[in-house]
Every structure is written in C-alpha cells, then in structure tokens.
C-alpha cells in the first residue's frame, strides 16, 4: 500500500472534517478524537449531501441534508436508513495524515 501525505492533523478540526478533492470525486477526512481519523466518500448515498459538513459524533457522522447517520468504521448507514459510503484506509504518523494512494487514483464507484 502506498500512502500520500495530505496534511497535518491539526488542519482538521476536532469532531470535524476536511475535504480532499480527487478526479474521481471528493473524499472527506473525519477527525473523531484527538488522534483518530477516518476517510470516506463525501457524498451521502441518499441525496448526495456533503458529509464533510455534517456533525461528527462518536465514530459517526450525520449528513447535513437529511440526518442520515453513518458509522465511519464500516460506512454503513445506521438506524432505519439503508445504504453505505465507501471508506478508505487512512493513517496518522507524527501528526501527518496519510491517505491510501488508491483512494485517489483507482476508486471504484461507491
């Protein structure tokens, strides 16, 4: 697996997210705790809501458009809603955020 340095963890607000733009669509980088990150597709499967703008709680995010909640570990929608978002490997090393290069170059359609 090859990793791409996309920025410093302090660039992502605690319990917030930032966006990575790729030619295949946007990836959201979520910071759920001081040193805990997740990466997933930015688009909600319901109506395409921007998940990076949602409220981050526990290890989940709530879509800002219609309150679908996704578990960032699995990408599965929670509760009564059905759907999932693609998640990507992301690592933290010495404060730097490393994203799996395949997330940027060869993503399958979510």
């Amino acid at each position, binding site marked *: 697996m090859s990793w791409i340095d996309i920025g410093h963890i302090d660039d*992502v607000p605690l319990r917030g997210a930032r966006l990575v733009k790729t030619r295949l669509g946007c990836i959201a980088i979520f910071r759920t705790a001081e040193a805990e990150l997740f990466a997933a597709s930015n688009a909600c499967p319901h109506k395409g809501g*921007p998940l990076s*703008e949602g409220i981050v709680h526990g290890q989940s995010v709530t879509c*800002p458009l219609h309150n679908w909640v996704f578990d960032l570990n699995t990408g599965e929608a929670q509760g009564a809603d059905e759907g999932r978002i693609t998640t990507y*490997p992301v690592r933290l090393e010495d404060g730097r955020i490393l994203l799996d290069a395949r997330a*940027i170059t060869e993503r399958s359609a979510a």
Partner: protein
Amino acid sequence: MKQKLVVIGAGMASGRVLEHLTETAPDAFDITLFNAEPRGNYNRIMLSPVLSGEKTYEDIVTHDGGWYAQRGIACRFGEHVVKIDREMKVVEGENGHVPYDKLLIATGSAPFIIPVPGKDLPGVITYRDLDDTNAMIDAAAKGGNAVVIGGGLLGLEAAAGLAERGMTVTVVHLMGHLMERQLDEAAGYLLRKDLELRGITVRTQASTKAILGEGRAEAVLLESGETLPADLVVMAVGIRPETRLATDAGLDVARGIEVNAQMQSSDPDVLAVGECVEFDGHLFGLVAPLYDQAKVAANTLLGQPDAFVVKELATKLKVTGCDLFSAGDFAEGEGREDIVFRDPARGVYKRLVIEDDRLIGAVMYGDTADGSWFFGLIKDGTDIDEMRDTLIFGPAYQGGDTADPLSAVAALPPEAEICGCNGVCKGTIVEAIAAGATDLAAVRASTKASASCGTCTGLVEQVLQVTLGDEFQMPAAQPICGCTDLTHEDVRRLIKAQELKSQAAVWQELGWKTPNGCHVCRPAINYYLLADWPLEYQDDPQSRFVNERKHANIQKDGTFSVVPRMWGGITNPAELRAIADAAEKYDVPTVKVTGGQRIDLLGVKGEDLPAIWADLNRAGLVSGHAYSKGLRTVKTCVGTDHCRFGTQDSTGLGIKLEKILWGSWTPHKLKLAVSGCPRNCAEATCKDIGVVCVDSGYQIGIGGAAGMDVKETELLCQVPTEDEAIEVVMAVTQAYREGGKYLDRLYKWLAKVGMDWVRANVVDDLENRRALAERFELSQSIYRKDPWAEHVRDKAPSYAPIADFTLEAAE
C-alpha cells in the same frame, strides 16, 4: 584481567545495571560511575511525595554511599563528563580522564524548555531532579503565586505539591484537556475538576508567550494577552533524551541514542540504557522497560545472550489523590467500538475500546480497581465476545442492574437549586416529601417548586422518585435523544444547578451514554451552555449544524446561500451595487428578495464564502444570520417618515431593535417586526415578537408564527415610550433564551409557561425586567458581532479542501 567499565549517569536504569553486574559477577569489572548530580541513585518517581512533604530525600535513596563503597565502585559525583573519546577509549571528566573497555551511557533525559523570553530568569525552574524539587520547596516556603506550565503528569504533580505547600497555583496547558496523551476528554475533565476542588486553577488551550519580570520571574504572559502573577514558574512541558555526549562522540542518534536489542549503540563497546535511548523507534519513560533494558545490558556486558523486547504497557497514575488508569490504545485506529460507563455520583468514568471482539484500550478515572484485570485482557488479546454485556463492570460482576438514570439527581447536594423561579432547593423538596407531600401537586403546594414556569417539573418528579422509590409512579418523559434519559428541561436545570460549564462536564455529570453526544443533543447542549454561561463557555462550532458553523444556508446541491443584513429593511445604492458586483463576480445563479426584506444570493460555492464575505464586508455589509437559531430580521414599514397613517418612527425602532438583538442565539429562530400603525404593513402580528405602534405608544405582542403553525401574537403589554418597548423586547427575548427548550419557537415556550407568568416576570416586575435585559446585554457583549469578518480573518483556509488532486497530471 578485570575489564574497565565506565558508567555515565546514576539514575534508575544504570542503578539496576550495577545491581545485576555486582550480584552476578562482582569481580568482572572495575567500575567508575559519573553523575552530574552530587549524589548517587534515588527513586525519581518518588520526587512528588518529597515535594508534597509526605517523604524526605532519605526515604527515596536507593543506593547510598555505603552501597557503592561495598562494591568498590569509584564514584565521581557532581562531576560533568566533558567528552567521550572513542578512539582512545577514554571518558574525559571535568577532573580528569578515565579509560574504559566498556562504556554505559545512562544520561536520562533533560527537561524541555520552551523558548520564550524570560525563560532564564531566576524563579523559573524545571521539575526533573532533587535540586529542582528542593528549589520548589524553598520557593513555596515564601508562599505567593505559582504558575505551572504543562498539564501532563509531571506538571500536575508539581501543581499538587505546590498547592499542598500553600501556594496559589495555576496550571497553564496548551491542549484542550489535561494529560491528553494518557486520558481522553471525559477523564481529563474529571481530573480537572478534582484539581479545581483543591484550589488549583486550570487554564487549557493556553499558550505561554513570555515570562515577565525585572531581575526575577514575576508573571507569565499568555498569547491571549492575559498576565498571570507568578512568584515561581515551573516548566514541565516535557522531556527529551539527553544525547549530547553521544552525538559529540559520533554515535548514531535519532531522537535518542540508537541501540540494538542487546542495548549496544552503533559502537558495540558503548551501551546505553534508559530514557536516553531509542529502540526500534520507541522512546522510554516508564520504569518497567528501563529495568528490562538494565537486565539485558548487564547480560550483554557479561557476554550472556539476551534481547530486549518492547511490551504493551499500562499506566496507572496517581496525581496525588486522583485515581487514573490508562492502558493500550484508546485514541487511535479504525474499526473500534466504545463501551462507556459513568457514575456522576461517585465521579467515576470508565471507557473500554474494543476491536474485533478484543479489548485494545481502557481509560478509567475515579475507580481503577479493575485496571489490572482489563490490562490483562488487553495484553492477552482475550476474546471478550461472551462477556461483552457485563465487561465494563469488571471481573466480579456477572449480569445485574443497568446504570441508574436517576443517579444525576440522586447525586445533587441538598442546597442545589431545583426551581429557579421560586428559589427552591433539593433539600427543601426532600423535607416536604418527608412531611407527606408525596406527589407533584402536593410538592407544588407546599414548596412552590415547579409551580411557576414549570420547566423543572421533570426534576421535581425525579426527586420524588429518588426519595420515595417505587411508591412514586414516574410519568413518562421524552429524553433529548438516545444519549441520555434526561429531558431538555432536566438538562437545562441541571446545567444551572450544578454549574456545568463545558460539554465534557454535561456528559460526565449527567451520565451521557455516548462519548460525545450525537447530532441531536450536541447542538442543544451547546446552546444551553452558551445561553447560561455566556462569558465562561466558548461556543463550539463542531456542535453546530453546518449553516451555523459556516454562516450560510446549505442548499440541496451542497452550495450555499448568502444573505447580507439590511438593518430594518433599509438599504442604499452603494450596498445594492456591492451585492450586484458580488453576484456577478462569484457567478451567483439566483438572486432573490426574501420575506424578511433583504436580498438572498443563492448558489455560492462553499470555498468562495470567505471571498464573497470579504467583498461584502468592504461595502459595510454584515451577515444577516438568515441561517441561525437566533435573531433573523426586524421587518418594518416606513412609519412616520413617509406614511400618512404612521403614528411612530417604526423604521427607526426596527433598526434600533435589530442593532441591539443581532448576533444573539435563541432556542429557535427569532423574527421580529415593527408596524407603524394598526394597518400592520410589516405583518408584526405573525412574528415571534411584534410591535404595533399606536398614537399612545407601543403594543408588544409575542408568540406569533407563520410556519408549520400559523399563530397570531398575543398582546403582552402596551408601553408609552420607545425605551420601554426596547427593554421589554430585550427582557422577553432573554426569558425565552433562558427557559426555552432547544428548537421550540417562542410560541411553544409561551404555551408552556403561560402569558400570566411572562407578564408577571417581564412586564410587571420592573426589577426583574431590568435584570433580564442586563443579562441579555451581558451575553451580547460576546455575541453582537459579525461572524463573516471573523471567518475571513481567521478561518478562511478551512473553507478550502485540505488537499486537491484534481489539478495533477492525468497520467
């Protein structure tokens, strides 16, 4: 012939090496021991009890002069080593050379000094060795103020010790919570609370700018501009391996002296142990791995095969009187789940982190009795699937009751105020129940608790249940969300009664079931905290819906709409030109006039927001808060300025009200209007607060709405002067802010408290009216400002992607 061994540094690691060597092979080496401190080895872990006065230096000495003499070790204490000459195999001390066959470096670590002006002033000390400890004891004898920089273990030990010795102590910590490496937020909050109870002031997210003083330290200046008086400044921000000798000697040094599993440096005749080494990327600070290293180093010196391995470690910490435990990995990694247990009554917090049916991390505060059992599970990788339901209760617990949702109320002290309207505390209610008031109506009759606005009804019922047990039948109330069993009203009252001033405080003291709430409760808690503690609590953007975080309205395609404020609906050609220019410059697809008498620019891209705001700001336009659970607009008609029917200056009053109220947060959106005569062209009678001007003064109505429900305002009062009208509007807004449930429009709050209560408190009781208006004004001293200007200035980069790979070459 005996080999010559030179040891540099008499700390806990090298002390253990010497023990092993002299026990197993007392005649193998001629040993010389250098130590920069003028003394031998003592137990550094016990410096805290020395500082606090529980122990003396004599109690913590591990190797005294006699010990070294018996073993024939030549001690050169108080002598610094100047140089290691590896070619000649000689160590150069200040007082002469010592040749070696084998060399052991155990220089430990040095305190990190933050490079701020004033760091070298007398009165600024670090906390590392006995001399530092004695310096603190001497300083404390004079009393006064101490500032400890650094809220990690060492810093807090120093703070606790100095407080114990009678100093007024403030801890300044850069991060958001104490001991952030070992503890999560909730445990950090409890620790802070314990320290504060002992009179220690804690300042988090505080960065030191300089240490001030003439000739000696007198104060610490923070980045915020605040100055903390300080007769003593303790720097305890961290340590780094002491590697200068090794670096000068040309050994491989990364962060520490690099060693192999035999504890040999890049020169096989030079070994190193302790905090100065780096092995396989790891540094070491706890005593257990140091002792492991010491055993391996002794064996290597004696030619015995041995290898050092890094083990999983638990930290059981004791910050004088606070029980903490942390083990494993509780902060990182994917695919993890949390089990959280909180007992507010006992100040207990436990969090287990589980991955693939195995426990991988644990944080505990208050009750750490089960720590070693959890640590065993982590170390052994035990499959915990079977005992998952009862895991958090520890080894002794199998099945049983779930946590008591009433524990928050049970934990309240008797003097905690339950009913704010009538000033009734818990003790009074408990007494009334004991005297025979066994239901809500009886408690109301005998104490007046919950007899006024009624928002504390849920709490009174809980006190009934806690006191009476099963004899009291609890009416079902709707909790805020799945994170808690408490209702909005309960939480609001408890935030006041227990003076909870942070989200972490609410989660812990009220027994939240999730680590940090959810999208339903977090915005509500954030609102309650900022409404109740405008000066102490800092608004949390991450607990706000995107619109309020980005100060624009998100649209269905992810773009935003931007609405500049038009005070009272009045604008001018310059503002209109600026809006038109912005619309063209940022390709705004739709420009629409809103119902609130302003102009909406729809379809602005998220990353363009700071730029369009900067342009609009330049023309004097500020945010219209068209997105907020707060004041939206004050709609007006033209009034006496132009209208032949106008009775008062309705436009002027509208502008005044908008300038007073703008930026304020309320439980739901708040719309106002001022009409110049009863023809009501500003539609004031379907607003949350509507003023209708008449010849004799101002009629103020409240509780209107034109949304999912259409409501006409009810008349609150009529006042003769504009000043009074303004004060009543401020007071009623504040009453709604203080009592309303999050996401209840004003008319819903009005239905709960009743018009009589509002009229009595906001209109008739002049003193209370003024007090409400003053509290509103106090809050507005923080919130009456343009968020756009602030975001343009400080936050613009966060609106752009963190990384953009769309511009890279395609192949």
